[in-house]
């Protein structure tokens, strides 16, 4: 967005949007379309996928594939290591019915969770429109009207846009609440329980990362809306204990917002990553053979770590490659730390056995001592049996 549209109030720096000219944007878009395959529609990134980027910020492979809208799940299947992700229909049904319960009573139930017992009239504007552009425009209008009106407004499934790597990504939070002072708050409705006032920390973390993406998208609209402010506390709504009664707590997402922001800024460099690739290279899952796809994937450097398995569709593929290369990182991020310049299993074992490596190198010396002590203990134990 251009600075002239800003209402002049102080705001966090907005740097996602590429500064470049329309022409260079178009070139990037074309290049990314080429990488994806001309007949393949871009796979829309949702907040969950954007949030997952933060799980492995250093991975160029993922940044490029996400930036180009490649369907990583389909790609993983073509490569022979399908992602084991899926959702049980029981969970989906339960999630939907809980969300309906939370939003019941014209939004008054949700406002009660906000701590507002008597909100007066709650406005729940109609947000449907044709096409994503229409819906985002409708959402922006509703936000503007709600802020100007100065009452309570509940936006049910608004549609927001965030520009990622030169193309718009549509995002649909569960709800956004606008309060009489013009503050916008993201509402995340989850079906994991809040047990005795506390929910599973890992799940809360994932929800917070997702909500942070919505906050960033809302900030773009707020920047051009008079009197608006986006809250950095999001309302997490969960079932209470073992019931389906909703309960809520405010989660501060400032840190997650900053991390995701930084990560999205790095994503805008996908044109650089793309620029370094050989001409004609593509991840076209429809047209290319498994070998060609595999070679194309190999052309982009990865940063595999075991955490990928739960966060990225290519996890098992990248793990296979990293293992073939003998990378010590396959054993865990922490393993790397103590090994200095030794990055492969073969090099570490050779150094430990005294077959290679400089004995003056502290990492090598430590390995040799570790191996000697380990052998000694094993021999001793065997002798005792």
């Amino acid at each position: 967005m251009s600075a002239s549209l800003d209402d002049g109030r102080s705001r966090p720096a907005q740097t996602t949007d590429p500064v470049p000219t329309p022409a260079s944007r178009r070139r990037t878009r074309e290049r990314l379309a080429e990488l994806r395959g001309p007949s393949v529609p871009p796979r829309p990134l949702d907040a969950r996928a954007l949030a997952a980027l933060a799980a492995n910020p250093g991975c160029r492979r993922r940044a490029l594939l996400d930036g180009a809208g490649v369907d990583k799940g389909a790609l993983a299947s073509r490569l022979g290591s399908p992602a084991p992700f899926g959702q049980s229909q029981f969970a989906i049904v339960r999630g939907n019915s809980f969300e309906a319960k939370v939003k019941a009573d014209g939004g008054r139930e949700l406002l009660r969770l906000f701590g507002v017992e008597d909100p007066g009239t709650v406005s729940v504007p109609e947000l449907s429109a044709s096409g994503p552009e229409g819906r985002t425009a409708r959402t922006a209008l509703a936000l503007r009207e709600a802020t100007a009106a100065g009452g309570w407004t509940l936006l049910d499934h608004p549609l927001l846009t965030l520009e990622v790597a030169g193309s718009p990504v549509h995002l649909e939070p569960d709800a956004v609440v606008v309060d009489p002072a013009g503050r916008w708050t993201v509402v995340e409705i989850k079906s994991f329980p809040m047990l005795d006032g506390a929910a599973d920390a890992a799940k809360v973390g994932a929800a917070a990362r997702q909500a942070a993406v919505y906050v960033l998208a809302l900030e773009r609209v707020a920047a051009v809306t008079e009197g608006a402010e986006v809250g950095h506390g999001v309302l997490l709504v969960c079932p209470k204990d073992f019931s389906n009664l909703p309960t809520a707590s405010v989660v501060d997402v400032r840190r997650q917002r900053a991390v995701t922001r930084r990560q999205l800024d790095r994503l805008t460099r996908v044109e650089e990553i793309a620029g370094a690739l050989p001409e004609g290279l593509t991840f076209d899952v429809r047209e290319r053979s498994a070998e060609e796809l595999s070679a194309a994937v190999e052309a982009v450097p990865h940063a595999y770590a075991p955490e990928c398995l739960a966060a990225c569709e290519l996890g098992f593929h990248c793990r296979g490659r990293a293992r073939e290369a003998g990378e010590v990182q396959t054993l865990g991020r922490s393993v790397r730390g103590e090994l200095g310049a030794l990055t492969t299993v073969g090099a570490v074992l050779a150094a430990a056995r005294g077959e290679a490596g400089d004995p003056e190198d502290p990492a090598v010396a430590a390995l040799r001592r570790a191996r000697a002590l380990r052998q000694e203990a094993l021999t001793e134990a065997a002798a005792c049996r």
Partner: protein
Amino acid sequence: MSLIAHLARMEAVESGRAQPLATVRHRHLSERPLVLVPLTTAGEAGAPLGALVGTGPDEPRLLVVPQPRDRELRFAFLAELAEEVLPYVDGYADAVEPVERKDPATGEKVQVELCLDAPQLIVPSRAGIEYVRLLGRSTRFRRTAEQDPDTPYPAPPRVPLLGRWLTHYGERARVPGSSLLLAATDLLNRHWATGQSSLEDQHLGALLAWIDPYDDEPGAEAAYRAELGRDSRGQLLCPPAGPATDPAFDNRLLAPAIEAYDRARQAVGAAEDGETADAALAALHRAEREVRRLVVSQLKPTWDATWRALGLLRELPEGARVADRWTRDRWSFTGHRDKVAAGEPPQPRRDDAVTAAAKLAAREQAQGRLDAQEALDDPLVLAGRRLAGEAFTGEVVEVTPAWTEARRPAPRPLLTFRTDDRPRLEPGTKVYRSLDGRPQTAEFVAPEEDGALVLRLLDKMGRAKEPAEGTVPEKGERIAWTLFEHDQRTGPKLPAPEDTPWTHGGPPRSADGELPDAVTPEDLL
């Protein structure tokens, strides 16, 4: 993790087989543990789907909830689970030994009972331990019709008691080194290093593929098949160890079977004459059998894997100090037994500040004890401490008699000790060795010119001027010294304060405890 453990993982990568991380078994294994393999319904907070439970690999009891949304069926499941768990627990309550200990309130010696053995619960994975806690939490505040005739949805009689025991076991599992409730994956991971990361090690099937492959297939390949391998219907060859099920199982097999069960139940309700009712009932039984068949298809591989894990661990000899920690577990069990008998209310939802702090301190202490005991029991664990400079092994090359300068001189012999290790010693640093299972202290005096260490022996040599026989090492003796203290306490261990009932000087409890959870007609558990 230490460099030695990293190295073991890399050796596992190279050889394709898991490598030992321990040379003895560091956890107690009961002769008759109760194995529990639970499954839960996706998206529901603790709505159980089924379980296999039992004390022998060949005789599991199968419990299934054919429609997890039905409260009556869930209660029936919990009642059946209580029927399995509580008699097993009660079976350990009566065999006791008398033990003398100080009453914490009066300071007088009193005789109390300590159960000779304790029930042990084994689940497949860490998620299983969390699930035990969750089940405990969801059931201990339930009210039975006997407790409260007006309660809208009374729980079956023994279910709240089941909840209290599961809560106790779940809580005890947080104490390092305790063995009342253990996960098979944790047990295996403590004793073997695989060629994969600790995240992947949480998958029981993959873990066993490294440790105990069926043929000589390399671990990485067998583990990959366990993680991702699917049959022609898209079902995992190795179902997850639970309590979560595989979404492909839920969507393709389980959901249709539960729908069929629902339809069959409706048909039974709608039947108007005897003949249609009979046919409908038969159909209902078939539908229920089908759900049971599906649930057991997911449970059985994990059940077998859990017992396989136990078998592998039994092959390791038990560490010498494992029995000491098990005694503490027996105290924990006995204490809770007494609390239940004394009519105390269920454990509160949240610990008050004092209890929380006491638990935290106790766990830290238990961690320190565990680290020390494991190192003393196992040369391979000790090797890690030696590498870290926290212990050293070597040989006595000279013994020089010496005494204190007091009026009645006490022996303080000097040992010249040679080691290749690099302990982090400074003059005056205390070091300890195990003398017949009890710690003997020495202090570091100074290094010799040739690198040997001079140590002064400080205690355990008796009251006479000459040290008692066998208390001073001889020239040529090999000794392992540690810079960390060994556990000083011997004899019967005291139970933790929170395990002590108020009748025995434990913390006072309000008689009525907490209110039960609110229940609504649509609740899931």
